[in-house]
């Protein structure tokens, strides 16, 4: 964490989860677990978000919404799938309306297991996401610099 210079903002969207992971994500952001000490902040606006937390599997109704939220986020961005439903579809995998995990619709970088995912696991996922985000924004900056140098 020593090299972190950015404070990424979180966007949370409930795919088709049972609510368990959602309230654990919320509990993470309250002072008991306090994910905000890692420099992240919860936001409701996809245009200002850097890390996308998805809970629950993808179904045909919310697929477009998830895709749209992902597209609205500026580059670089990191996607975290929270809970076993977002990872693979979980217990609902065999349901007729579940297409699968979040990776069926958007590229997922970090998978957080658990049903419901525990706050400690979610915080670990967020730390990894923050580090990955730092790496990506460094790469992005280097790329822009390189482009400028070449003219």
């Amino acid at each position, binding site marked *: 964490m020593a090299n972190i210079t950015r404070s990424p903002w979180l966007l949370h*969207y409930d795919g*088709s989860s049972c*609510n*368990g992971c*959602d309230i654990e994500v919320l509990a993470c952001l309250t002072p008991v677990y306090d994910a905000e000490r890692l420099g992240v902040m919860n936001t409701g606006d996809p245009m200002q978000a850097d890390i996308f937390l998805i809970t629950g599997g993808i*179904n045909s109704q919310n697929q477009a*919404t998830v895709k749209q939220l992902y597209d609205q986020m500026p580059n670089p961005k990191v996607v975290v799938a929270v809970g076993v439903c977002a990872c693979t579809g979980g*217990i*609902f995998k065999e349901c007729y309306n579940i297409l699968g995990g979040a990776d069926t619709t958007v590229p997922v970088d970090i998978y957080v297991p658990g*049903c419901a995912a525990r706050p400690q696991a979610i915080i670990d996922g967020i730390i990894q996401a923050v580090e990955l985000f730092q790496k990506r924004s460094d790469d992005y900056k280097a790329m822009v610099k390189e482009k400028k140098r070449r003219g």
Partner: protein
Amino acid sequence: MGKRSVIPFGPQHPVLPEPIHIDLVVEDEKVVEAIPSIGFVHRGLESLAEKKDFNQMVYVAERTCGICSFQHGMGYCESVEHIFGVEVPRRARFLRTIWAELSRMHSHLLWLGLLADGFGYENLFYQCWRIREKILDLHELTAGGRLIFSVNKVGGVTKDIEKEKLEEILRTLDEADDELRVIRSVFFEDRTVLSRLKGVGVLSKEQINELGAVGPFARASGVRVDMRMLGYAAYNELSFIPIVSNDGDCYARCFIRMMELFQSIKLIREAIGKIPEEKEIEVPVKGNPDGEYFMRVEQPRGEAFYYVKASGKPLLDRMRIRTPTFANIPALCEMLKSSEIADVGLLVLTIDPCISCTER
């Protein structure tokens, strides 16, 4: 008269963590019509009854909703137990009551926190969630999980709560009781809170009856409906009187849920006092269920309805769940009519919507 326009509310929005979409038809600042559209969280959970046997379905039923998970499992188990005609040991029924009331407390505290956030009191939100963490610690202590702790099974419960842990529950409840009294005065007396809640979103008793609302939402309008009066689990052995208010506004809904927190503390204390000292916490269930049963349980949000039909096979023929939020949505849409657009978020919150229950 102003021009009519449509404002989409949701599915992704800051008041609730869950997706619900409502099209608000507005005239200037007034909402004239609210058209809900649901299905963002629909999984088709009931269809799993065709693929998983009746014992595995307990875990599916528990995952209908992460907040009232325990009570979903309890409703399902009790309906299958009635089909089998087995008598659940008395201690197991008391344990179920204790867990059910603990999860009601955590759900109501969660709602009070969201409400506080809804009218802009972030500190109060955190205070509510701080107390809620104590209840979740009790869940973890007694059952091993924070939100979804699969302790129900057909025929009883899988875990016992030992004497020391029961004492720990009582100790924590005493602490929570003191802290809740401090918070209560803010919700009930603060001038800003009163101006946001008093007289907002009033529904009369007749409207509630006509639209079929349930739970604290209905009780706030003077309808005396609480499934705990049916006496499932161990409620028939506890002194239970539903809390009812006649105002029918947002303040009354807040009042009902706050008072139910104290009622839950009282019920848990009483249940721990009366819990029998027997060893048995489950009865063996042999064979496959044959028959059908309706079961109604009172969840934090209101009456949940379970229908289970079986025909002597390991797989159930049909499982049907009707959840409280689904019953409350017509009344919500009636309430949103003629409300101010600034109050919409708060009004949606006051029915305590649980979308993943609703859409299953």
